[in-house]
């Protein structure tokens, strides 16, 4: 069985209603599979979200879809 490559994203976003769900929805809908995640709120204003995921599509495509979300500030 082929082992899919795992990738790690660290996302900083505004901690607003729905913003975490919105990111996770985009990952799921655009073909990503989350294997591990950690979220840390920063003063209820921002959060950092670290995702370990696999995808069968191009990674840059998924990155672009996440980056264009209004509440996402950075993705590394």
């Amino acid at each position, binding site marked *: 069985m082929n082992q899919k490559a795992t990738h790690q994203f660290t996302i900083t976003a505004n901690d607003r209603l729905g913003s975490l769900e919105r990111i996770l929805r985009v990952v799921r809908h655009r073909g990503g599979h989350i294997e591990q995640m950690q979220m840390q709120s920063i003063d209820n204003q921002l959060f950092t979200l670290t995702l370990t995921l696999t995808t069968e599509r191009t990674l840059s495509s998924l990155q*672009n879809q996440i980056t264009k979300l209004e509440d996402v500030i950075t993705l590394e």
Partner: protein
Amino acid sequence: MLGTQWIVKTLKEKGITTVFGYPGGQIMPLYDALYDGGIEHVLCRHEQGAAMAAIGYARATGKIGVCIATSGPGATNIITGLADALIDSVPVIALTGQVPTTLIGTDAFQEVDVLGLSLACTKHSYLINDATQLPNTLQEAFNLANSGRPGPILIDIPKDIQLADHDYQAYLTPSTIKTPSDNTQQYPILLDEIKQAQQMISQAQKPILYIGGGVGLSGAINELREFMTLTQIPSVSTLKGLGVADLNNPYYLGLIGMHGAKAANLAVQECDLLIALGVRFDDRVTGKLNEFAKHAKVIHVDIDQSEINKLRQTHLGLQGDIKHVLPLLNQTVSIADWHNKIKQLKAQHPTRYDHPGEAIYAPALLKRISERKPTNTVITTDVGQHQMWTAQHMSFTHPQNFITSSGLGTMGFGLPAAVGAQMSRPNDMVICVSGDGSFMMNVQELTTIKRKKLPIKIVLIDNQRLGMVRQWQELFFNERYSETNLSDNPDFLMLAKAFDIPGQSISKKAEIEPALDNLFNSSGAYLLHVCIDELENVWPLVPPGAANENMLDKSNKE
């Protein structure tokens, strides 16, 4: 000031003069503010109609369309409209009532998680749980709807927030107030990339311009036409790109894709450079993706970085506003052989309107309407065969004159979109071309037409079938006509009459001209009911999964 009064004040400051909606329990405070608030409210008869009317309003003008619904079912009913606006990049703001903040999450009457529902069908959305957020959220929503790639924004507003009394001005951050021109995001133009693009264009032997809806959204119609004139590079258009190109350019080939012009598809398949402008490489355009323009290098210009390399790997992706980028690519090219080939393709694959028998041939009818309509007429359509015939056989001089649900393919779109278009352009003729399947999906909006006395012309092409599905059943499902027979349709003339809309029914070619006289000479709304043969199909056609060069002119049976 109440929250709702602040909302109305903000709408007016943003230039909103007309909104579309339907009242209900949790949005009643906003309707109370609208009662004498100085904004025209158009009561649609279903929230879906209100959302699609807001889309029609926006697409006919480029302005932001606003729709309003109550909580629960009111909000769920606008979801299809928002999804439509998202995929077609339409600036719409939806305001929904929500149960009071203390009841959220308790399964209250008419409560549904609207923010959750909105995530997949909006560019961005908000649930306001603190009244002091209202001023900045409204500003942000207006900024977002029409900036970058436009799209729908939803603001869910609990009833207690609507009724909260505050000095809202004190909570407004001045820097959030932006004008539309402030929202024209500037994208850095990288000179190296421009030089590379220029080089690719100058070296190409068989370039093609692939024109999408983004060109019109960018306001780059003049720039595009100038580019076409100067370079004489042949061009093709997507469904949403129709109306952008200079129709008099001899190398414009028209619509591409599943029901595109055969010459357009063949040219794209043969090209060596595809200059893609504001397009999505939609599957209805590309056919079999890895066979699409397979000899071509691709330059893709789009304001949305996520569209570049999404489906087709580009050789050069330029994120930016087409209006600013395109003039930098202007140059003369020497492609005489390619021009000859394009002329040859056009000559080999002409559009034919000669059709045997007395029955009305819908493409010929639509071509005739196109020839007779005033220049600035807005055409809206529903979805199906009539939509494709309209795209193939009618001509448009501006993308705001052709409003069709392109990406989502939403049946029931045409009538409410016509309502919105007519409200925004009262001095222009609006014609809704519909089919008997689609028409019934938002037929309640005939009441809105009656209520507002809108002079909308409806051309209802009736084959007593769910025509496009029937066509696929015939061609690809062994003629197993599952649930596509609509021969029990209502009497459409009688139906229209119930809404004080006169009309006539025709079924023969000889009746067309007098009927069009009646349609164009009518001062108010009018229904032209056109009976056509149920077996007529839309041709040409790229079969599902096939490459575009394998498009069929007709099936073997015809």
